[in-house]
């Protein structure tokens, strides 16, 4: 068998182990929460009506049995593992008996869409600017951008997002500040709907881009300012190779490997959603679902989101490791 296949197989086994451990950890995290979904539901149905204490007690018992919470934790764990193997994460406790994965599936496209887009955009712009700033170290404009990037970086994301709402929704109301699309268009592939989605995505995406840009920019700038001192760059310059070619194929191309790795990691990370973005922009997505599930003690949904995140990140790591040798011809598989 070829070395690469052996390596890939080993790597895949590690992936399985990571997923198993991560998912198991997620199970206990989700189930150790002191919040009881049963109480959440009781609070909801009885809190605002005249419910007798006896009725409440009876409802409590029914729900506890229904949710399978009356068996010991380890039994719940083994039940979970059995179901997990066939891809079933069980019913949501907040929306019983709707499968938790169905709820996740509803929110997922929004989160993934928004985050993939903004992450890739941020990554591209940040890296290009950072690459240029690292190469043209005397450019005033890029220097100024660097200072801005350093300044913006520590501003809490919440503030940035909210400022966008205030500026573009209030002081100068030109963009929609809430929702995923307008109410008068219906989901379809019509240009109106797609346009509406894009329009509603502008502010959330912009806030993410603004906050994320600095990190990529600074990282890339640091990488590139190391690479420009490499002999092969100097040599290409001395040989009169075109500047654009040097920047692209010599400088940025060499900085790409670590940056691609980081990109894959952050793309893996998007499956946990962006809680603040969703809160501030009333944007649909996993973050809101997660916060609500956590708040309501819906361990099934917390677990489903966690599992998706664990698998996504583990897959991202796996993919990075698998394609790393392809990206960097120097890498040898050991």
């Amino acid at each position: 068998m070829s070395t690469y296949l052996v390596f890939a197989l080993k790597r895949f086994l590690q992936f399985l182990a990571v997923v198993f451990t991560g998912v198991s950890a997620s199970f206990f995290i989700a189930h150790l929460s002191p919040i009881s979904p049963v109480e959440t539901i009781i609070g909801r149905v009885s809190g605002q009506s005249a419910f007798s204490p006896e009725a409440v007690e009876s409802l409590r018992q029914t729900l506890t049995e229904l949710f399978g919470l009356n068996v010991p934790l380890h039994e719940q764990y083994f039940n979970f593992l059995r179901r997990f193997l066939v891809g079933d994460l069980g019913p949501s406790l907040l929306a019983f008996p709707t499968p938790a994965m169905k709820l996740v599936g509803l929110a997922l496209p929004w989160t993934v869409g928004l985050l993939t887009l903004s992450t890739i955009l941020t990554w591209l712009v940040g890296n290009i600017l950072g690459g240029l700033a690292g190469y043209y170290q005397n450019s005033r404009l890029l220097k100024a951008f660097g200072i801005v990037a350093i300044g913006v970086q520590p501003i809490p994301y919440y503030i940035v997002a909210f400022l966008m709402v205030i500026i573009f929704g209030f002081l100068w109301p030109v963009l929609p500040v809430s929702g995923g699309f307008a109410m008068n268009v219906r989901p379809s592939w019509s240009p109106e709907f797609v346009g509406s989605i894009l329009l509603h995505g502008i502010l959330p995406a912009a806030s993410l881009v603004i906050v994320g840009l600095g990190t990529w920019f600074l990282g890339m700038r640091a990488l590139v300012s190391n690479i420009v001192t490499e002999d092969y760059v100097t040599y290409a310059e001395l040989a009169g190779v075109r500047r654009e070619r040097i920047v692209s194929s010599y400088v940025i191309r060499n900085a790409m490997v670590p940056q691609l790795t980081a990109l894959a990691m952050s793309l893996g990370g998007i499956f946990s959603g962006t809680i603040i973005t969703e809160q501030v922009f009333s944007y649909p997505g996993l973050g809101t679902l997660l916060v609500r599930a956590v708040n309501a003690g819906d361990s099934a949904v917390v677990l489903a989101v966690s599992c998706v995140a664990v698998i996504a990140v583990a897959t991202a790591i796996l993919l990075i490791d698998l394609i790393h040798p392809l990206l960097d011809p120097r890498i040898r598989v050991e």
Partner: protein
Amino acid sequence: MFSVFRDLIRYNMEFAVGVVLVGAIVLFSLLSFISPVDPTAIYTTIPDMPPSAEYWFGTNSRGQDLFWHLTFAFRNTLFFGLSVALLSRVISIAVGLAAGYLGGWTDRVLMFVNDIFVALPTFPILVLFYFVLRSDLDMFKLALIMACFGWPYDARLIRSVALGLKHREFTRHAVFAGMSPVKIMFEEHLPYVMPIVFATAMANMIWSIGLEVTLAVLGFTNINIPTVGTALYWANNHSAMVVGVWWWIVIPVVLIVLTFLGLFLLAVSMNEYIDPRSRLRRMGA
């Protein structure tokens, strides 16, 4: 040591500005120890006063003097950020260097653990701790928990550097000079990763403070502890943005930005200091 410090201040603008900024913020947060007001007391002054000679940073809608309130907030936030950065640096250095230098099974096991920590979703875990510990969740415990999630990526980075160092001749030389692996890792290799450590420490602080703010804004931290996060939480809770009490938000944010600018400048100049080769380059010996 002192003379180095003096020279740095005198000749290195970046260092000087960094020291001034960070020093000012640290001093500011130290003022909390002589604060005349109790940071948890509310309605001790007239609320919503803009910054003035009497109230330098104004007062918030909870009737607190923001200047004194923020001294506590910054003390706690800085302590928190530094603790997370420090603790997670310790873990990432130990793991990164050990995995890189020792290799083999150690490497495999450590990277496996690393992958798991990367993969685990942080948010539900932090919230879980909040629900379990609630008001026992002080800044140190929170720092401890976050430190557990702040190390993996940086450990990978350090490991990749350590992997390269492992095959350098001076490492082999050190082995035959009888140095133990621990000594080699922490005395020979550590200085090489220090620039990474500094750079990632900054990023880590930004991350941890940002996460603290996120948790606080969502109400998942102990909101009785004054921090930058809880300051923003309360500001949000009183609609400070739309009501026009801008100083409640702008001032802490400006201070945070200044802190990190200062830290950034310090990190840049410290990296140069640590590396005698770059000192050499500068002196031109």
